[in-house]
């Protein structure tokens, strides 16, 4: 029953079409797709939204908002709206990569723990339980501050993933335990399939779709996490995300009050909120799609 590559691709394409149709007709999914499309355009073509760049500097500082500078000019003479527009790319990319890495680690650890069982399982569960015992944001702040002299955006991503994988691993492990005893897996074992083949061919493909839905929601959380870190002055100054604008706003609160530059505070927050709404809505839609019980309703 060998299928040709063309048939396989055709099947994938059909299911992708079905998925996008479902998401588009899902109330929350539609909101998510529209906002995300807007943010992606902003991330890919920042020039469409502002004629200034984050490097542009004016001689004046603390200039209130005007038509030319929708959010005003900050303490260093930089255009705030330009910083926000160019920050979109960083915030989205960091959230996205961190979520991808988290899910990958979580899926691997969860599958290995669930499939191999025994002492491997016990050790992995113990480690993931222990990491879950620490407030993750606090841990991230501590690590970022401790290594602040070498810190950059990649460290942020890696540390976020290293702290956040346990919850995914726990979920995948539970699913693996269920799948392990299914007849088709047992049949594969009898036929002499290697453990690696069973994991990658029979178990992971069944957990991956749900992981994607989860990762989508996690992107939202990570964007906020990274912004919190930057807000505390622990970000990467060479790759300023949305949190950086809020960091400078918080530093210059007195001047903001005196000049009435409320846009400096409000706009970056609104951008973060939009991104979070987009990813959460999309994630919910995906989860509903993958849960046939809900889909029928």
């Amino acid at each position, binding site marked *: 029953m060998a299928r040709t590559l063309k048939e396989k691709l055709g099947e994938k394409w059909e299911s992708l079409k079905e998925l996008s149709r479902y998401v588009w007709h899902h109330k929350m999914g539609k909101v998510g797709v529209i906002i995300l499309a807007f943010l992606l355009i902003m991330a890919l073509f920042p020039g469409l939204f502002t004629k200034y760049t984050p490097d542009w500097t004016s001689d004046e500082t603390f200039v209130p908002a005007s038509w030319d500078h929708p959010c005003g000019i900050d303490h260093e003479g930089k255009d705030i709206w330009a910083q926000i527009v160019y920050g979109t790319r960083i915030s989205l990319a960091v959230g996205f990569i961190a979520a991808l890495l988290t899910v990958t680690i979580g899926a691997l650890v969860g599958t290995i723990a669930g499939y191999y069982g025994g002492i491997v399982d016990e050790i992995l569960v*113990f*480690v993931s*339980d*222990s*990491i879950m*015992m*620490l*407030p*993750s*944001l*606090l*841990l991230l*702040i*501590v*690590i970022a*501050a*401790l*290594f602040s*002299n070498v810190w950059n955006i990649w460290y942020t991503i890696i540390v976020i993933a290293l702290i956040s994988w346990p919850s995914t691993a726990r979920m995948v492990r539970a699913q693996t335990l269920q799948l392990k005893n299914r007849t088709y897996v047992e049949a594969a074992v009898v036929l002499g399939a290697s453990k690696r083949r069973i994991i990658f061919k029979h178990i992971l493909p069944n957990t991956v779709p749900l992981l994607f839905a989860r990762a989508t929601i996690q992107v*939202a959380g990570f964007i*906020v996490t990274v*912004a*919190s870190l930057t*807000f*505390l002055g622990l970000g990467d100054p060479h790759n300023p995300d949305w949190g950086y604008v*809020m960091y400078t*706003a*918080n530093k210059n*609160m007195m001047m*903001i*009050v005196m000049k009435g530059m*409320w846009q400096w*505070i*409000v706009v*970056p*927050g609104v951008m*973060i*909120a*939009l*991104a*979070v*709404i987009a990813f*959460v*809505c999309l994630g919910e839609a995906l989860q509903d799609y993958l849960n046939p019980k809900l889909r029928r309703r």
Partner: protein
Amino acid sequence: MARGMVSYTLAKIAHRLLTLIFVILIIYTLLRLAPGTPFDQYLYQGKITQAQYENLLKEWGYKDSFLVGAAKVLYGMITFSLFKMKSPVYNKPITDLISVRLPYTLSLVTAAYFFGAMLGMILGLYCARNRGTLKESAIIWITLGIRSLPVFWLGMVLLYVFAFKLGLFPFLTSSELHPLNIFHHMIDWLWHSLLPIIALSKIYAVSYLLTIRNMVSEEYTSDYVVSFRAIGLKEDYIVERYVLRSIMPPVITMMAIDLGFLFGGAVVTETVFNYPGMGTLIYTAIWNKDYPVVLASFYIIAVAVILAITIAEITYAYLDPRIRRG
């Protein structure tokens, strides 16, 4: 005591103690890997000579090998002498530093927690009971909107509007705060802490609203509720007697776990509001490379979290006998 509870409880406690040790060792390893000591700046400024610097390092245990240091930390954990150690930056026992800050964080966190959880539960229940109505979807969309606002940003906006623009609240929180044990200072405390409480409680209000709504509406579709309705039991009676009761165990667990995670949110909130709690203590301690303080603070937090979770698990097992059998 229900059957199997004792062995279950003992096994859980043993497991959690191991977790605690492991967690503290992780923090210790991180602190050891991090570059710098608190005395570096004195050396650069020329306040101490190289020989004095070496002496200080030896005196404060920075020259210990990794294992000796780890053994000292473990010994300090077990005998609680970790807190009697002195901070090399302030040259004061850690107990003195923490005992001033801990009440502020605890009061902030508990107030925010209960305010948020109560509000969330009441609204969540309301939403579940009015599923599909216009009011319900309005509440849900507003909640989703609020959920997406970062806590520190909310804090900044609250400060901007209520403290700076309207002048209703102080913006240099609690630099003039007094000890909490005197009753009439409670009003003062509330005045200083209301904004951080509101900002922090937002997380809980939102997550409890959504979870309770989902749990209760799932429970509503189950067969027993339908049959109770069919035999004519009052809606309020079903909710109070059966629905709330069956969602209790997971809610208790969730509440206990969240209590621990409040500390993470508290650090950021405390920084925004300049609030003199554990968060700002840890934060400045890291910048000063004041590692004994960081370690002791994490010890307290880890104990609090693990205690909360263990109590939750044991309560859960007590309420739901299926868990005990593993």
